């Protein structure tokens, strides 16, 4: 359990590829032998993948056009 606490602190560094080779190997060795940590890692991977799938939304064209018109008009009115 104490060992798990240590590795839980490194979860995100592992997922974001920020661990050194040695730390990564040590981490993977732990999750190979710990179903609890392995499950957490898999859940988080699925969540991160799903977040990535969401991606950047596209602004509706009419909103973009209104934005351009609004800003230019405001600049003109304020004489900037």
């Amino acid at each position, binding site marked *: 359990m104490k060992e798990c606490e240590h590795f839980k602190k490194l979860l*995100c560094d592992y997922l974001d590829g920020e661990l050194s080779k040695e730390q990564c190997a040590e981490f993977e060795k732990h999750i190979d032998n710990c179903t609890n940590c392995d*499950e957490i890692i898999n859940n*988080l991977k699925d969540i991160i993948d799903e977040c990535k799938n*969401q991606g*950047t*939304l*596209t602004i509706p064209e009419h909103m973009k056009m209104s*934005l351009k018109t609004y*800003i230019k008009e405001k600049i003109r009115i304020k004489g900037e």
Partner: protein
Amino acid sequence: MHLNNQKKTKITDQELSDIIEKHSNKLYSIVYRMIDNHDDIMDILQETFYKTYKSIDNFHGNSSLFTYMVSIAINETRQYIRKKKKTLFADINIDDEVLLSSRYPSIEENIIKRNNAEKLNNAIKKLPEKYREIIILKDIEGMKIKEITEILSISVQAVKTRIHRGRLFLRELTENNIERM
């Protein structure tokens, strides 16, 4: 886009249009996921681009123009949420365009995708604001930790801690049941 220390006197209409063209999708996407009202999103984006325009002469390029604009948008969104004095979240209806990939997934895959997107979006709505911001910036918009430190004006360690807690929070809120494709 880095303007660095160039001494510019405002920008031309075309340059302003180019900035809006280049950055409006990301800014819209971030703000849209934070709040739920198109009129208010428009107000926030207008304020963001106008403030960018006003301060562009003083922009020293310590950060990219984009991270500078995101930080304005985030601050405007926070103010908006405070002003409303209630938590407003985006009830995101993901368009088919967003959900469907070009490889024509099976009906079953589409159902899983929709379910996953719905579960995730419902969970994101419930996240406390600071974790919602960080998950949107890091995991949905794919921004780098260094960029996020500049946007939120917090340390690398604080960003990492928020990402860690935000993801674990999200895991609890999705009840560990995002299905694998």
